């Protein structure tokens, strides 16, 4: 027995030794700190690595990608797409993990490696809770593709958060248009990205020190708030280019409540009210104070959602356009002027002149509708008694200031707080304000126009550049304006053609304006890149 067992035992012992002593390669370090700005996983995960030729080929393989290539130009650099996880703070000061993208240019060309500028980008409103702007493999990630092609593939390091409330974030809401939270999150991901850069597989590319801040739509507001916060902290920003953002939130809110209902209002409303309710706690006692009985159930957790927005509409969880009641509020008694302002914009007694957007504004009324008349009236009374300098009716007050005193109506008070005129801040760094003059989603005159007018007496000449891509082509961005307008003309012709549905000119024009806000984005991004490239 001894002679047999001994060699077998030795071999078994060797097996156990190997099993216990086995090792494997190291993976990323998980941060123990949850302090805001901490990179949670270092090095970050690289989702994809595309060289310039592959990226170009993948873009050219789809019609939308091919159109984008015409605006962005061919990629000069490859791009490595990293998935950042970092710690930040929510709208009610909650410690929370968030995620985002670090896109690093790669390649042998001098403009693709070494010391490169950083573009800190804030994305537009997205209803998809699973949004991951770093995931270039997801075909629905159009904004990720846009910024990769526009900036990263041309030598800019791109840093972009998904925002708290999206992707891996466990925050049960999104701090939508919360200037303090969103600017803080932008700064946190910038800090995390700077930590990550030396550890990536693209370490040949590093932070060159130039910092550009930009973003579109909701992200335009975020970008401007971030510019304000960075400048307040003493950080040096090379330039900023907020695009099509709702900067003058009080004025914008007043315009909407007075009947100029923007496209997307029924989506923005629950995002906004929940964000501000979480941050300030006073938007309503219960959601039923604000929302009609038809839609109030589950409204606080409705968006962002894993359910596609079309299904949310089709299953009756939200109205597609009817934000307000088509029956004009009858109580409490209102002044004739205010009562008229609450009419449907197509009503002959509505005081503002008709515009091409009037049919779209009127579509914001219906039954059933989203917002209770009582809440709308309370807002309107506050706006009428303590008007914004830019709204509602001419003459505007000089300098288009905020309301003279802090509003008392809670939602308007929150908009006042997050309006970027608040605090009389003005940019210290070169700033391009790009948008489209006919934007039916984020009104250009009420936001970009108001900020430009507000800042005009406060900043040195030339510091602020305003670009309306629908304007008459002129100046350094004439080609961008010409390109956008040609694109719109081609799209209109397509809608009227048999292939595009053979729509009547009026129907085609309506469809064009409905897609206008999204159509502006790549052209403004191209303008921003041109603006950054000379600094």
């Amino acid at each position: 027995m001894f002679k047999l067992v001994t060699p077998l035992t030795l071999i078994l012992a060797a097996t156990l030794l190997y099993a216990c002593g086995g090792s494997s390669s190291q993976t990323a370090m998980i941060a123990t700190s949850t302090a805001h700005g901490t990179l949670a996983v270092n090095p970050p995960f690289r989702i994809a690595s595309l060289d310039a030729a592959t990226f170009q080929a993948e873009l050219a393989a789809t019609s939308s990608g091919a159109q984008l290539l015409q605006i962005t130009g061919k990629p000069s650099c490859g791009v490595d797409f990293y998935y950042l996880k970092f710690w930040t703070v929510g709208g009610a000061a909650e410690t929370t993990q968030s995620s985002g993208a670090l896109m690093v240019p790669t390649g042998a060309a001098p403009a693709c490696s070494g010391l490169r500028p950083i573009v800190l980008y804030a994305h537009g409103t997205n209803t998809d809770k699973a949004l991951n702007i770093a995931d270039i493999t997801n075909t629905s990630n159009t904004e990720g593709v846009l910024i990769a092609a526009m900036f990263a593939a041309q030598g800019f390091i791109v840093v972009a958060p998904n925002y708290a409330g999206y992707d891996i974030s466990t925050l049960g809401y999104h701090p939508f248009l919360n200037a303090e939270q969103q600017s803080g999150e932008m700064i946190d991901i910038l800090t995390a990205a700077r930590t990550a850069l030396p550890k990536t597989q693209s370490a040949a590319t590093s932070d060159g020190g130039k910092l550009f801040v930009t973003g579109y739509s909701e992200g335009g507001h975020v970008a401007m708030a971030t510019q304000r916060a960075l400048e307040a902290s003493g950080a040096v920003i090379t330039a900023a280019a907020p695009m099509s953002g709702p900067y003058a939130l009080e004025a914008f809110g007043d315009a909407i409540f007075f009947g100029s209902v923007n496209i997307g209002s029924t989506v923005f409303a629950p995002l906004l009210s929940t964000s501000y309710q979480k941050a300030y706690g006073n938007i309503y006692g219960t959601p039923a104070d604000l929302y009609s009985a038809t839609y109030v159930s589950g409204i606080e957790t409705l968006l962002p959602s894993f359910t596609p927005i079309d299904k949310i509409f089709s299953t009756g969880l939200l109205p597609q356009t009817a934000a307000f009641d088509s029956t004009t509020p009858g109580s409490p008694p209102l002044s004739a002027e205010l009562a008229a302002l609450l009419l449907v914009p197509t009503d002959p007694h509505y005081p503002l002149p008709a515009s091409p957007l009037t049919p779209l504004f009127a579509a914001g009324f219906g039954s059933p509708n989203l917002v209770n008349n009582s809440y709308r009236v309370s807002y309107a009374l506050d706006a009428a008694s303590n008007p914004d300098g830019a709204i509602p009716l001419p003459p505007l007050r000089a300098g288009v200031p905020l309301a003279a005193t802090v509003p008392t109506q809670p939602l308007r008070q929150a908009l006042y707080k997050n309006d970027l005129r608040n605090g009389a801040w003005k940019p210290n760094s070169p700033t391009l304000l790009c948008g489209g003059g006919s934007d039916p989603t984020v009104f250009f005159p009420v936001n970009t126009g108001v900020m430009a007018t507000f800042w005009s007496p406060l900043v040195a000449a030339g510091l602020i550049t305003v670009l309306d891509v629908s304007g008459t082509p002129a100046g350094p961005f004439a080609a961008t304006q010409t390109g956008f307008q040609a694109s719109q003309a081609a799209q209109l012709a397509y809608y009227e053609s048999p292939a595009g549905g053979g729509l009547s000119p009026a129907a085609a024009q309506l469809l064009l304006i409905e897609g206008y806000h999204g159509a502006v984005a790549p052209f403004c991004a191209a303008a921003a890149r041109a603006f950054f490239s000379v600094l």
Partner: protein
Amino acid sequence: MTTFSVRTLFAVVVATASLYGAAPALADDFPSNSARAGLYSVFFHVKADDLTGPYVPHGANIDANNVETLYLAYVRSLSPNFDVELTLGYPPLQKTVGKGPATLGSVPYNGQVIATARWLAPTVLFEYVFFDQNSKWRPYIGVGVNYTNFYDRNSTAQGNAASGGPTKLSLTASVGPAGTVGVGYHIANNWHMYASYSISKVSTDLTAETAGVIRTSHINFGPQALVVSLGYSF
């Protein structure tokens, strides 16, 4: 899993020992122990599930390169026609290669060595040996149990590039049936030459973790081995 598998093997060994204890005594003029060493050529016929997990393109799979290593075995004769063999190859450096898309993004994948590991695969075989002990040639057949443990698992630089960063690999240990056919040739005195062909079932669950991103696959290696060895009886 590993603990259970080792226990299983240990039970087999104990059973073997018990069998030895109950076995009839062998003829005095034939040694009952043999040590063998030789060349161990392993050919894999891998069938693996496509890798699953986040950011894995369709059809990303893996394969294993064939290896050659040192064959070591201890054989105990239980009776004139029954042997028990414990085989142990010197743990080779096993290379795993990508199979599927030529590139993942722009990172080369198909045919690239993406990981290495060493394996230790002790196998217990119960063999029936034909003819009597005086025969010059003695064919044999056997069945048994294989235990495979993987260690020194490393994702290569190419594997890290394809996976998205430094990657930690784990492979569960495997226990499966094994079979062999072979022939022994008596050279002189206590020396014999052997040649054999063996198959075994070796399967494992692969887990690859890259910065918190987990990808998995189930792999059947389907190893077949050709062995040429020299044995000394004592």
